[in-house]
């Protein structure tokens, strides 16, 4: 395969000067589709809510004080829960002993400040830095030449370009041929995009990848352990596993979690009914004393995942210990380029020294509780900065930036107005 395979069609949009992910046309379209899908199936929703209530009541009969905490790992599941007000919907329906807890599923929130600072530095040194829209506004803990974010660096004259994807950066980097860096954040979902582009030979020699890919199963182990750490809290009783990450790694990847902690894990889709089905299945399993991995999102996820994607990822990358912002090192939770692909490695090419456990230092602003929010130990409203010093327009902490950050989702979609309206329509309130 030669590099000429990859040519931009005439109407291919050039990289925008900045991207507002909340108002991107494709995202708006998807939100509308999700809302339509919901409105079309409210009777199924009512059935699911009644089913959840039945099992919740049966469990309450067993132990009236117990709260069943269910972790929704993925930022997009948290979006579904908040946007459609599923927490208030369950409350209105009389489900008092089930709590949905947001988990670490937001890559922008957990990317260490160090890498961002290195990227800002390189941008000022004249390299072209490509980044996703939500990383563009992500604040670092230290200022570099007066800039705390890549957006500020751009305003001060540095070359920062916002792209929708790695492919976009590949197409653009070929045009200018200047040394360029791609800030490669993400989970397993984006990894095959990076590895396939490298294996197909479409990445131009001037574009280097800074691989900051994180792996979700190790983070889930860590988050579940952390919540158990406090004896006053009830442990997580079940997990809603990320749907699109699982298209790559498969339902099988969650078996160790289910078996180690003895809790049900349900891989769910992103419609409100998908999430409610997952909650219903988790409660059913708890009541029957089961702890299995079940795929609810069968239209997209297979038990074994995509073997081709898995093989492509592990051909190009190796698993390494990785730092999570505000949290520290989680063993075997990141992906780095293997030696034979070092020619694409930004760390190698630009001489960026890798972060080590000795060099890592706590990298959240004073007062910010993003790490606890990420691990499901605190709610955004527990943070003293939330909606006071830290707002979506002027984010201080990383959880307030991304479309998948729990604080940003609560700030933009909180309130549950839609849920109450729907609950009335369904005769639940």
């Amino acid at each position, binding site marked *: *395969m030669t590099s000429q*395979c*990859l040519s931009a*069609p005439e*109407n*291919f949009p050039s990289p925008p000067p900045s991207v507002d992910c909340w108002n991107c046309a*494709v*995202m708006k*379209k998807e939100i*509308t*589709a*999700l809302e*339509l*899908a919901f409105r*079309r*199936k409210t*009777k*199924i929703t009512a*059935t*699911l809510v*009644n*089913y959840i209530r*039945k099992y919740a009541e049966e469990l309450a009969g067993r132990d009236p004080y117990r709260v069943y905490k269910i972790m929704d790992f*993925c*930022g997009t*599941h948290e979006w579904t829960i908040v946007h459609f007000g599923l927490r208030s919907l369950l409350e209105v329906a009389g489900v008092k002993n089930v709590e949905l807890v947001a988990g670490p599923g937001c*890559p922008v929130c957990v990317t260490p400040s160090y890498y961002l600072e290195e990227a800002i530095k390189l941008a000022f040194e004249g390299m072209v830095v490509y980044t996703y829209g939500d990383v563009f506004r992500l604040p670092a803990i230290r200022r570099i030449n007066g800039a705390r974010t890549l957006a500020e660096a751009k305003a001060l004259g540095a070359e920062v370009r916002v792209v*929708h*994807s*790695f*492919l*976009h950066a590949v197409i653009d980097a070929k045009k200018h041929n200047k040394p360029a860096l791609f800030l490669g954040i*993400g*989970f397993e*979902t*984006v990894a*095959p*995009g990076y590895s*396939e582009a490298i294996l197909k030979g*479409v990445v131009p020699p001037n574009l280097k990848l800074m691989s900051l890919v994180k792996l979700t199963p190790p983070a889930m182990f860590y988050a579940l352990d952390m919540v158990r750490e406090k004896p006053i809290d009830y442990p997580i009783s079940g997990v809603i596993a*990320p*749907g*699109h*990450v699982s*298209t*790559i790694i498969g339902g099988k990847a969650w078996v160790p979690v289910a078996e180690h902690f003895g809790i049900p894990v349900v891989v769910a889709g*992103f*419609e409100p009914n998908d999430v409610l*089905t997952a909650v*219903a299945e988790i409660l059913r399993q708890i009541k029957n004393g089961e702890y299995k991995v079940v795929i*609810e999102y*069968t*239209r*997209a996820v297979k038990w074994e995942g*995509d*073997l*081709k*994607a898995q093989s492509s990822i592990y051909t190009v990358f190796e698993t390494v210990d990785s730092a999570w912002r505000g949290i520290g090192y989680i063993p075997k939770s990141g992906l780095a380029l293997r030696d034979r692909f070092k020619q694409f490695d930004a760390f190698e090419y630009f001489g960026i020294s890798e972060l080590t456990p000795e060099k890592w230092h706590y990298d959240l602003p004073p007062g910010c509780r993003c790490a606890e929010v990420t691990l499901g130990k605190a709610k955004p409203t527990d943070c003293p900065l939330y909606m006071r010093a830290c707002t979506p327009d002027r984010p201080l902490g990383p959880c307030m930036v991304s*479309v*998948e950050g729990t604080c940003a989702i609560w700030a933009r979609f909180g309130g549950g107005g839609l849920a109450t309206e729907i609950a009335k329509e369904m005769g639940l309130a």
Partner: protein
Amino acid sequence: MCWAVPAVVKKIEGGIAYVDPGDGIERPAVIGIDEKDVQVGDLVMVHAAVIITKVDLSTLKESMEMWKRMAIELATATGEDPATAARVIEEEMWRVLKLVEEVKAGRSDALKELA
């Protein structure tokens, strides 16, 4: 990092797929999964210009059966008619399945209504 959108594959050239998420604009995407599985006309999920899975809409019938079982279990417990409860689920899902048929028949604008 789970935000992905459904799109229809319009053409495949040199290992890169061009997908339409329902607005008529074809966008290039890396095929992250097994290329043998992806053909023109397929419905796929696209995440940051990476095709991460092919959507198998025939499983919607499985979902319908699962919800029907739940509705029947509920109705039996509360003393309602299980057949009526199952029919309510079927009626709602039929509308969704009709939409799916339209997408399969190549009407990608029907995607606007399919999440």
